[in-house]
């Protein structure tokens, strides 16, 4: 699958060739406004700051662009958001001179802007979100963060993101309609009433931001007209005039065509990303809400199918142009410039019928054509997903860029219903970020929580009686492995530690929530989430219809495997003395005896092989956490939204790497400082019985309770999908995924280049599964001859 035109090809090449940069314009305007308006309510301060940015920032229209609107002065250039945190910017600039000396996620800041940026930083020092969070953080939580049993940096240095606003409403009413709603609410206020002045400021700020969004679009209309006048190519001049007409209409007015609808969605999506630096701002069910416009335009010969494709491809390139700069300290938690802009397709209508339409196919094909890391494409599967659509998904998957990811209506909808979501809303869910779910336009931020709980760290500390061997801190003393008499007693110690650290992770969440609410309310975003206007509240104050969030846990597989090894070897078979285990862990299994012990530990049952012995421990461990986390309420509880609760989730992005990097050797045989297992996936390289066993193991977890989402990653070799028959088998596998009620699955289909890389660095590719003869095996465990054979086979097939 290729892109549909030379235009798109050029735009794609252009955006891919850009070196990520840093743009300070936004920081300049926000700082000016904050300086000039110290006494204004924070809503208005932020509304005016956004207004000044949208009305003054550099804008551009690249040659050939059909969809216009930019986040910063150039594509792939990150704005600076000084109000969230500046210490890290200063530190990185002082230590390294720029952001381009980082090990990963490199950015370039033009030298001439460095001085101004440092000047801006001076103003913000002591005033940022991060400063406030640190000032209000209890000592205990700080220590737990140093231990890295919990981690919450991400949301003390950036905004919330993780939201799908009501795009459908914007398309139907235009921002004009939303402004009208705000004006009506404003005129209905009785200013003598309690809290009315606050509401007044909030509603006024909404009107300001929405009007400035309209102005922002008008600026592009003007620019397009200017460009059209100077354009020699009449075809392009015509395109520019069309762009101008689009930008005059949307997002102010309801969209009257597919083209306008796409442009409108892009503006609304873009402005959220200028307002806040939160990531995972997602587009929701694009095939559902764009379809009426597509259908009308096709029927009336307004557009062709090819042109619709081209517009979608332009939209994907736009999504890819968005970028965020994060502190190096947090980059490891989401490596590779991710912005997690999710697009959801497929699924069901509220009547429970299949919702796949032509646009679902076009979205799938266009994402395959552009082959970028954005959007993060999700397909909602259900019991009656059409075979043809499923096969199309598999064809795209075969291309080997990891998309689409699959979600399962058959467990997600019941899970949402069980949390009090209405029938119609539950059927209308969409993905946010990676694997999180929310009801578009009605859900607060953060259907995923902001603090990570390092389960494997907690387990390590439990072995040592609550003491962290790396830092020496001991926040909660319990009996160590040498002091307990039975496995059950050891489990109890772990439960105590888990309860303790789960609670601290909630405190950490509240530290961030409280300060985000107070310091950096998102006005534009709140305007487009129901029922913020009606309630006169931002999302963070409880404006959303639903507001439930999940904690994030890392390393469930490591915990289950460690527990299984301890249970079996230490307590049941008694072949391993606790003292010896601890000694070996301290020596990182490097002594002669340590090697022997590690071998025994590695031979113990491992999660991911459909082995009840260890899978039941995984379930038990997870239930401990489930039982604990549902006790807590978020900061919006009782303030309006349905829910206000916490539930579990395993969408831990790439945090398994930094989380593992602070944990010494563990009883599952894992060496010190190596990555933890990811999401709910088995520990890398320990699942040896093929994909069906993995699916079975994961299906034993209490998925319906994990409303925060349950992540499963699988790597496959391309020849598992070679030929019609194998693709059908793969479809069978996916259908069974649906029937087993798993939450999410994504596949990496790896090429021979990857296999070569795996030969060079086997440690990194331990979970790479390839087909040998009639069966699958871990590639790195194969002997060199067989590896060679498999590589040559793959290459033959590629010809």
């Amino acid at each position, binding site marked *: 699958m290729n892109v549909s035109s030379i235009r798109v090809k050029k735009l794609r090449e252009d955006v891919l060739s850009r070196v990520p940069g840093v743009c300070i314009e936004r920081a300049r305007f926000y700082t000016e406004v904050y300086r000039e308006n110290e006494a204004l309510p924070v809503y208005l301060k932020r509304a005016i700051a956004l207004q000044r940015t949208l009305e003054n920032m550099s804008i551009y229209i690249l040659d050939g662009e059909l969809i216009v609107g930019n986040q910063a002065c150039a594509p792939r250039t990150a704005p600076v958001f000084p109000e969230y945190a500046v210490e890290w910017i200063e530190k990185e600039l002082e230590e390294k001179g720029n952001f381009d000396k980082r090990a990963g996620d490199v950015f370039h800041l033009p030298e001439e802007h460095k001085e101004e940026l440092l000047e801006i930083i001076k103003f913000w020092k002591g005033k940022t979100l991060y400063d406030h969070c640190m000032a209000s953080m209890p000592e205990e939580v700080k220590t737990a963060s140093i231990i890295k049993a919990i981690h919450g940096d991400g949301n003390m240095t950036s905004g919330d993101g993780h939201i799908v606003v009501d795009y459908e409403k914007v398309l139907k009413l235009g921002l004009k309609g939303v402004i009208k709603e705000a004006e009506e609410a404003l005129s209905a206020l009785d200013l003598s009433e309690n809290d009315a002045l606050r509401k007044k400021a909030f509603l006024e700020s909404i009107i300001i931001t929405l009007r400035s969004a309209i102005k922002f679009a008008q600026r592009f209309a003007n620019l397009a007209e200017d460009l059209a006048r100077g354009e020699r190519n009449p075809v392009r001049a015509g395109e520019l005039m069309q762009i101008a007409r689009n930008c005059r209409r949307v997002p102010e007015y309801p969209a009257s065509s597919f083209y306008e609808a796409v442009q409108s969605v892009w503006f609304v999506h873009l402005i959220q990303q200028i307002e806040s630096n939160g990531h995972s701002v997602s587009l929701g069910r694009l095939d559902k809400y764009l379809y009426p416009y597509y259908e009308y335009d096709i029927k009336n010969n307004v557009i062709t199918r090819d042109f619709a494709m081209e517009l979608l491809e332009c939209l994907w390139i736009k999504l890819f142009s968005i970028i965020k700069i994060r502190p190096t300290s947090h980059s490891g938690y989401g490596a590779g410039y991710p912005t997690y802009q999710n697009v959801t397709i497929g699924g069901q209508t509220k009547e429970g019928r299949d919702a796949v339409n032509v646009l679902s196919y076009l979205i799938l094909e266009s994402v395959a054509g552009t082959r970028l890391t954005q959007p993060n494409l999700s397909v909602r599967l259900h019991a009656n997903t059409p075979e043809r659509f499923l096969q199309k998904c598999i064809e795209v998957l075969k291309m080997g860029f990891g998309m689409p990811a699959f979600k399962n209506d058959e467990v997600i909808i019941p899970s949402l219903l069980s949390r009090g979501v209405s029938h119609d809303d539950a059927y209308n869910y969409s993905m946010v970020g990676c694997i999180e779910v929310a009801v578009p336009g009605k859900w607060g931020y953060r259907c995923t929580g902001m603090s990570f709980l390092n389960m494997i760290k907690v387990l390590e500390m439990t072995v040592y009686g609550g003491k962290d061997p790396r830092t020496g801190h001991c926040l909660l003393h319990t009996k160590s492995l040498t002091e307990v008499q039975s496995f059950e007693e050891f489990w109890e110690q772990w439960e105590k530690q888990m309860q303790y650290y789960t609670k601290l992770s909630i405190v950490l969440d509240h530290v961030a929530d409280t300060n985000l609410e107070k310091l950096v309310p998102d006005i534009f975003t709140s305007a487009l989430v129901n029922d913020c206007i009606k309630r006169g509240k931002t999302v963070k104050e409880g404006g959303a219809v639903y507001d439930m969030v999940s904690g994030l846990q890392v390393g469930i597989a490591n915990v289950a495997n460690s527990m299984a090894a301890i249970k079996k070897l230490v307590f049941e078979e008694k072949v391993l003395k606790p003292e010896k285990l601890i000694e070996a862990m301290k020596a990182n299994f490097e002594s002669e005896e340590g090697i022997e012990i590690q071998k025994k530990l590695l031979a113990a049952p491992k999660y991911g092989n459909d082995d009840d012995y260890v899978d039941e421990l995984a379930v038990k461990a997870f239930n401990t956490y489930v039982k604990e986390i549902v006790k807590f309420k978020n900061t919006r509880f009782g303030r309006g939204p349905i829910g206000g609760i916490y539930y579990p989730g395993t969408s831990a992005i790439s945090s398994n790497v930094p989380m593992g990097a602070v944990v010494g050797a563990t009883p599952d045989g894992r060496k010190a400082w190596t990555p933890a297992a990811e999401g709910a996936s088995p520990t890398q390289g320990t699942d040896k019985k093929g994909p069906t066993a993995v699916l079975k193991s994961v299906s034993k977890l209490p998925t319906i309770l994990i409303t925060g989402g349950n992540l499963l990653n699988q790597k496959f070799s391309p020849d598992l999908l070679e030929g019609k028959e194998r693709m059908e088998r793969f479809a069978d*596998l996916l259908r*069974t995924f649906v029937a087993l009620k798993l939450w999410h699955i994504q596949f990496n289909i790896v090429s021979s280049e990857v296999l070569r890389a795996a030969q060079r660095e086997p440690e990194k590719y331990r979970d790479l599964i390839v087909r040998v003869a009639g069966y699958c095996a871990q590639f790195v465990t194969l002997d060199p001859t067989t590896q060679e054979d498999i590589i040559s086979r793959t290459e033959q097939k590629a010809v």
Partner: protein
Amino acid sequence: MRELKKTSGIICEIERYALNDGPGIRTLVFFKGCPLRCKWCSNPETHNFHPELYYYTHKCTFCGKCIAVCPYHAIRADYSRQKVITDRNICRTCGECIKACPTGARSAVGMEMTVEQVMEEVKKDIPFYLRGGGGVTLSGGEVLSRFEFALEILKKSREEFIDTAVETSGYAPWDVVKEVISYTDHVLIDIKHMDPLRHRELTGVENKLILDNIKKIDRSKVHYIIRIPLITGINDDESNIKAIKEFTNGLKNLREVHLLPYHTLGKSKYEYLERIYELGHLVKPHKEKIYEAAQILKDSGLNVVVGG
């Protein structure tokens, strides 16, 4: 070696998500032991009926621990290669050396399993069998050599409504074949060579019994597929394929033939078993050769699948 009860047998491996051995997603149960010795065999670990030892030389550090623990003194040092050698005639696969090896360079292939144990594994993937008509496939080794054990598994699978398939060389008395296929949904049976003498030379047995059994299977109405391993320069010549065609022309109920081109994936297994792979030097059959063979068979109206 002690006699095995009919309720247990030696299994090499149970592979899940097998895609090539019958319809749908299947679980493959590899029996250990085979009366044939096909020179190209890619599963040499299934030759003998008893458990054996795998030795991964690339993992061996020549520490000598295995030599010290072996109760039968079957292991000795090979100083020139800095490796060890196991006298397979003395080794009883007691497992002491496996336990002692610090690097995992030794493992056992083949373990005694009861019907219940096999069924426990087979039943695990029932949810996956339901779509696409998958199920269990008994393979080997030669399933029919342990037909009582095989029958029990097949019967139990039928009780659980699990689709059943058997991969066989067909080298067993008809009574045995007849009983086994009565509990089998799909039979995958090989034709390796049409010439009786050449067959004997290549596999150690003659092909008459096999060909007779195929004719009888054809009359039994069970769904069956003939599989032909295509071995470069051994049986892929036009005359042999034509002879096969002539034979299959006489079969009324045959619809499908699978061509299984020779591959070298079994090579390392011979090394692990410290045996010599006579045909290890062969190259894979040329694409054209496979195409030609497929064409010949297609001419008689058969559905020919390469790889199968």
